[in-house]
């Protein structure tokens, strides 16, 4: 029996070369209800979906300066769901007129042995946190309203402490590279959420101190 043909061409496109377009903002706790109400009206007509996730951030310190960061995330509300491993590249410095933050993004689903695997590979866990909130969708756009909490005892997700009195709002789209109409749609959607929340492009590299 012949072996099935193996493609020798490198795999391009598909899910490998996806870019994440991101806009972020935040609302205070008091404004959460009105924001959820508005999102419920603007987004696709589905039952509201809540989530509770536990995210661990792993670092691989190489010889050079910048460490390699991988984010591993699992769902606490759906324990049987697979882990999600994500790599986010540097934000693309394109023209300044682009409205959203664009960066390379690789998403992989992983089994429950992921933390051990990463430890064996040499990654070390830098920090972890718990996020819970609501998730909405409009077409290809995903809107996540989440509250981040700090884990006091490593590994214990029950004992958490809220990091702030506000909710983080993120509008993101996963699209193949080169589609610039996506950022236009995101901007027009963000316009509709003003003045409840101002979603804007926040460069993570500028945040670091």
């Amino acid at each position, binding site marked *: 029996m012949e072996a099935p043909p193996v493609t020798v061409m490198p795999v391009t496109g598909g899910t490998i070369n996806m870019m994440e377009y991101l806009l972020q903002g935040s609302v205070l706790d008091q404004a959460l209800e009105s924001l959820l109400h508005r999102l419920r009206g603007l*987004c*696709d*007509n*589905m*039952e509201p*979906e809540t*989530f509770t*996730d536990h*995210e661990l951030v792993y670092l691989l310190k190489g010889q050079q300066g910048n460490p390699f960061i991988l*984010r591993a*995330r*699992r*769902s606490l*509300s*759906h324990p049987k*769901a*697979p*882990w*999600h491993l*994500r790599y986010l590249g540097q934000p693309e410095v394109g023209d300044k007129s682009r409205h959203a933050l664009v960066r390379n993004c690789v*998403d*992989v*689903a*992983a*089994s*429950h042995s992921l933390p051990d695997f990463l430890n064996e590979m040499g990654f070390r866990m830098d920090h972890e946190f718990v*996020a819970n*909130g609501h*998730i909405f*969708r*409009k*077409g*290809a756009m*995903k809107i*996540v309203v*989440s509250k981040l909490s700090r884990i006091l005892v490593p590994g214990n997700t029950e004992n958490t402490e809220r990091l702030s009195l506000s909710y983080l709002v993120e509008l993101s789209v*996963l699209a193949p590279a080169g589609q610039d109409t996506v950022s236009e749609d995101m901007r027009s959607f963000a316009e*509709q959420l003003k003045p409840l929340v101002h979603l804007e492009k926040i460069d993570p590299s500028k945040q670091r101190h």
Partner: protein
Amino acid sequence: MSGGPAVRVSIESSCEKQVQEVALDGTETYVPPLSMSQNLAKLAQRIDFSQGSDSEEDGAEGEPRDREWGKQEPEEEEGTVKFQPSLWPWDSVRNNLRSALTEMCVLYDVLSVVKEKKYMALDPVSQDPTAGKTPQVFQLISKKKSLATAAQLLLKGAEKLTKSVAENQENRRQRDFNSELLRLRSQWKLRKVGDKILGDLSYRSAGSLFPHHGTFEVIKNTDIDLDKKIPEDYCPLDVQIPSDLEGSAYIKVSIQKQAPDIGDLGTVNLFRRPPKTKAGTQPWHVKLEAAQNVLLCKEIFAQLSREAVQIKSQIPHIVVKNQIISQPFPGLQLSISLCHSTGEKKNHRTSPEKPKPDDHLYVLEHNLHQMMREFHKQQLSSVVMPHPASAPFGHKRLRLAGPLAYDKAEISSLQQSEGLLEKIIKQAKHIFLRSRTARTIDSLASRIEDPQIQAHWSNINDVYESSVKVLITSQGYEQICK
């Protein structure tokens, strides 16, 4: 009272004693003030006994009474006439009291005489017999009058109410722009962009992935002349739909036995009557619904034609202009066409070609719509939502493919295997086979007299399967075979 220092105020009564005479040496001799008894006497003189507490009436009655008893009491009259003011002040009081006593005595005497009923009798004053009737008639008339006035008041009030209700209805008929806009907003998605009001009539929020934007604009109808009478169907609001969604459309699915000429392909452009507007629906609603239907038909046709081109089958499907032709069975042709009439229907009405009523399979058209909506609904199911939240959208089970190392067979079993076109072809095959089977059984049953053949078709069928029970019996025998 201001908070200044207290001021002593002394009060002195004015000199109350009257001066009687002034002596030569300047001393004044005052009239001595009246003593208590003198004061009382002076006041008693002023009492008027003829005036009772009921003032006038008693006074008037008192006078004739005085005259009546005048003859019997000449002495008392003389006594009152002989009143001399120079007598002591209590004299008038004494006289009045004496006359009162006399009158009381007389009254007492009369009453005692009347009580014996020998010399004096009391007779009731006779009632006027006619006075009894008139009160009733009078009552009736007065009641009638009062009822009439009450009725008039109520009628006036009712008139006012009906007038105000009629005015309200008139206002409503005139249809204010804002109230109409509110009504529009209760049924369609609207948003304000700058100074324009845009709306969305696509199925995107219901799960469609069709790239048509589906935005319509709401404009104010200002070409109304307020002086002229407002027409019946006036609406202050007008919607402007995208030009490619104008008119009405439907998907015509038909099965034909013979294959038409190649040249005839793509010429299907039939239309049916525009749907009758229900009384009470606004014109914009009809317009928007028609546009939405056109959009849905376009999406269905786009999906079908995409699949027709992509899916490999033994007999390739032909896609020509607005028609898709495929052959489910040899000799049988299934044609699906999008019939879109843009509204200039007056010219086309003269075309003599009338479609045969049973040519168009309404069932399949309905099924197409239904399948499209099911596809939309699947897009929105919560199975698609990612847990954890950072994961991309996608079917929940497909996300397990990586960790659980699914092979190709398992993955392909998870994904949608059949497209819209394949499904509809299967359904068309089923319909054709069912009708052919029924015809065959019926022809056999009519041709063969012995044994008898009966066919019971089940009412409840699937789109892909039907069930029929065929009974073959022979007259006189209980069972035909063991």
